[in-house]
C-alpha cells in the first residue's frame, strides 16, 4: 500500500488521489518532496558549509549554475575560491583536483558527464585510486568524482555510456550509484566525508524527479553508509537487484507482477564498489531466484559480477534457476527514439525476464 503511494510520489503525479486512499492512519512525519537535483545541491551546500576544505570544480559549475543546474546557487553563496569554473581540460583539471586532495583539500570534481571522464581516467585510477596503496599509507586522496552516468535521452553513442563496470573494477576506488533523492543526498555526503576517492554515478534522467525525503533525510548530518544496499520492497517470489534508474523500473515491474501474485524483492544496490553481496545472498536464500537489472552493457558488467559472486557464495545452493541478467543491448547507443528505447531495459523486459526465470 505504501508502495503504491510511493509509486505516485515517485512519478510526480498528482498526489490528491493518493491522499483519498485511506492508507495513512496517522499524520505522516514531516516528509517533503525533493528532486534528486535539489538533494545533490543540498548535500554539496551542507558539506561546503561544514568543512572549509571542501570545494567544487568542473566545467560550468559556477556562473552557469551547473550544466544540469545541480550546483545552482552555490557560486553565489561561496564565491570563486570554492566553486571553480574550469576550462575544457578534463585530464588537466582532474589531475589538479587529485593534487589538491593530496595536499589536504577535499575537492569535488564534476564531470559534465562521465563520458568525459574517460579523458581523465588515468588521473582517477593511477593518481587517485592506487596512491594510498603504492605509498603504503603515506598519501591519502580524499576526493569525489561526480556527474551524470549512463544513458540520457537522444544524446547518442558518445554521450550514453555507463561506467559502473569500469570504475567498479578498480581497487582503491569506491563507487556509488544513487537512485532516489535520499540516496543522492546521503551517498554524496558520505562520499565527500570519505577519506578515499569516491566515484558518484548520478543519472541525468533522475535529476528532475521528485522523491519523498524523510525527516531524517532532511537533516544536515544525514549520510548513507557506502557499501550497504537497501531493500526497497520486500517479497518472497524472486529477488531483483538494480542500481540507479533501474531501481525505479524494478519497482514498476514489481507492482505489475504483484497483481499476478508474484512478489518481487527489490534491492537497490546503492553502492557498486564495495558491493553489498551479503544483502543479495540473504535475499536469494529466501526467494531462490535472482534477476539483475542494469543500463550498462552485459559483458563484464555489474550483473556479470553479481552472478559470479552468487556462484562463489552460500546462496548458489538456494537458486532454483540460473541468475538472469537484464542489461542494455550490446551496441553503441543509437539516436532514433524507437532504436534508443529498444537499447535499454524496459519495464516489460524485466517482467518478461522474471517470468522466464520463474518458468511461468
Amino acid at each position, binding site marked *: 500500500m505504501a508502495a503504491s503511494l510511493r509509486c505516485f510520489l515517485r512519478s510526480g503525479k498528482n498526489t490528491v488521489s493518493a491522499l483519498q486512499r485511506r492508507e495513512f492512519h496517522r499524520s505522516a512525519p514531516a516528509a517533503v518532496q525533493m528532486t534528486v537535483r535539489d538533494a545533490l545541491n543540498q548535500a554539496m551546500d551542507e558539506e561546503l558549509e561544514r568543512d572549509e576544505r571542501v*570545494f567544487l570544480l568542473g566545467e560550468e559549475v559556477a556562473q552557469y549554475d551547473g550544466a544540469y543546474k545541480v550546483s545552482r546557487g552555490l557560486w553565489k553563496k561561496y564565491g570563486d*575560491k570554492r566553486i*571553480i569554473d*574550469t*576550462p575544457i*581540460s578534463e*585530464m*588537466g*583539471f*582532474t*589531475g*589538479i*583536483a*587529485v*593534487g*589538491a*586532495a*593530496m*595536499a*589536504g*583539500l577535499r575537492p569535488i570534481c564534476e564531470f559534465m558527464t562521465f563520458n568525459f571522464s574517460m579523458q581523465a581516467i*588515468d*588521473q582517477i585510477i*593511477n*593518481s587517485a585510486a592506487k*596512491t*594510498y*596503496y*603504492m*605509498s*603504503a*599509507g*603515506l*598519501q*591519502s586522496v*580524499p576526493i569525489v568524482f561526480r556527474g551524470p552516468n549512463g544513458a540520457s535521452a537522444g544524446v547518442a553513442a558518445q554521450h550514453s555510456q555507463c561506467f559502473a563496470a569500469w570504475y567498479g573494477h578498480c*581497487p*582503491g576506488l*569506491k563507487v556509488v550509484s544513487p537512485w532516489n533523492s535520499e540516496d543522492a543526498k546521503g551517498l554524496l555526503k558520505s562520499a565527500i566525508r570519505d*577519506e*578515499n576517492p569516491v566515484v558518484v554515478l548520478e543519472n541525468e534522467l533522475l535529476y528532475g524527479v521528485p522523491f519523498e525525503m524523510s525527516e531524517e533525510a532532511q537533516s544536515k548530518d544525514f549520510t548513507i553508509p557506502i557499501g550497504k544496499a537497501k531493500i526497497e520492497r520486500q517479497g518472497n517470489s524472486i529477488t531483483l537487484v538494480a542500481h540507479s534508474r533501474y531501481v525505479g523500473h524494478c519497482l514498476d515491474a514489481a507492482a505489475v507482477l504483484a497483481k499476478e501474485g508474484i512478489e518481487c524483492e527489490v534491492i537497490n544496490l546503492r553502492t557498486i564498489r*564495495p558491493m553489498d553481496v551479503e544483502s543479495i545472498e540473504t535475499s536469494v536464500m529466501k526467494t531462490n531466484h535472482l534477476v539483475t537489472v542494469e543500463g550498462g552493457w552485459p559483458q563484464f558488467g555489474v550483473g556479470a559480477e553479481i552472478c559470479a559472486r552468487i556462484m*562463489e*557464495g552460500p546462496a548458489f545452493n538456494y537458486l532454483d534457476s540460473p541468475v538472469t541478467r537484464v542489461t542494455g543491448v550490446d551496441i553503441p547507443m543509437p539516436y532514433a527514439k524507437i532504436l534508443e528505447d529498444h537499447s535499454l531495459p524496459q519495464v516489460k523486459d524485466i517482467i518478461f525476464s522474471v517470468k522466464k526465470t520463474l518458468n511461468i
Partner: protein
Amino acid sequence: MLATIASVFRVSAQRNGAALIMSAHTFTDFTTQATFEIKKCDLFKLDEGPATQVVLTRDEGLQYYRTIQIMRRMELKADQLYKQKMIRGFCHLYDGQEACAVGLEASINLSDHLITAYRAHGYTYTRGGTVKEIMAELTGRRGGIAKGKGGSMHMYCKNFYGGNGIIGAQVPLGAGVALACKYLGNNELCVCLYGDGAANQGQIFETYNMAALWKLPVIFVCENNRYGMGTSVERAAASTDYYKRGEFIPGLRVDGMDVLCVREATRFAADHCRSGKGPILMELQTYRYHGHSMSDPGLSYRTREEIREVRSKSDPISMLKDHMLSQNMASVEELKGIDVEVRKEIEDAAQFATTDPEPPLEELCNHIFYNEPPFEVRGTNPWTKLKSIS
C-alpha cells in the same frame, strides 16, 4: 671548528693512521665564502633574470658536495644491485643530474612541495628520505620508504608527492598541490618537474593554462637531459626551447649541471611565485650518464664520446669541487674524507637493503583505503579470503 679537526683525525684514523696528522693545518685557513660568476640564464617574457654573481659559503659548499655525492653513490650502488638482480622492474637512475635536485632544494623550504616523475630517487633523498629507506624500497623490503609496496617509481615522504609512473600525469597533480597552497594561504609553493619527453604531453599544456589563469604558485621545471628514452629532443619536439613552451608563462633556461646556477634560478623563481605573480617555467639543461633505465645501455641513440665529454667538462661534482678548491674553501683531503663517509653510508644502506626481510604476506591487502574498518579482500580463488587494514 673542533668538529672539523676531529673529523680530520677520524679520516686519518680510517686511513690506518699512517697519514700525516693534519693538525698543523688549521681550518681557520679556509675561506668561509666566495663569490662566483655563473652562466647567465636565457629569459623568456622576463625583463630581468637571476643574479649572475653568487655567493657560496664553505658550509653550503660542503653540504651540497656531500648531498651530490650521496646521490651519485646511491645511484651507482642501485646500478650494481640491479645487475645482481636484487632490484627488479624499472630503475631509472639520476646520476649526472644531481645539481638539479640539490640546487632546487637549496632555494626552497622543506615546507614547500615537490613532485616529479619516475627518475625520483634523488628527489626522495633531498626531500627528506634516508638512503636506507630508499634502497630498501628498491629491493622491495619492509624497511622501504613505501614498505616495499611502491618500488622505484613510487616513493613518498612529507611534501613529496612521488615518484609518478605515468609520464606527464604529475604535472596537473603539482598544479593541484599549488592550488591547495594558494587556497590555504600558506605562502608555500610547489615545484613540479617533468622531462623533455613529457614536455610534449597535452595535459601539461592544459595545466599551463589553468596555472596561469588562476595564478597558481607553481614552478614548472623541465629537466631537459636531451633524450626522452631513446628519442633525442630534435626528433621529438617541433620547438626544443622548452622554457618557452609555456607561451604565456615566463621562462628561464638554466645550466642544470651547475648547482649554483640552479640554486640561483630557483631563488628567482620562488620569489616570483611567492609574490603572487603566478607560475614560472625553468628549463634545466642537464644530462644523465645512464641510459633511460637499467634495461637501456644508453648507447644506441647517443655516442660514448658525448657521454665522456659531458663527464669531463660538466660533471656537477667536478664543478663544485673546482669551485671549492679554487677558492680554498675546502681541502682535497677534506673532500676525500666526505667521499669515504658517503661510501660507508651507502654500503651500510645497501647492506640493510639486501638483508631486511621482505614485507609480510599478511600485509598484502593493507592500505587500500584510509581510515576504514578492516574488510575482506578476495584472494586468487573464492576460498582465499584476505584481510585489508587501513
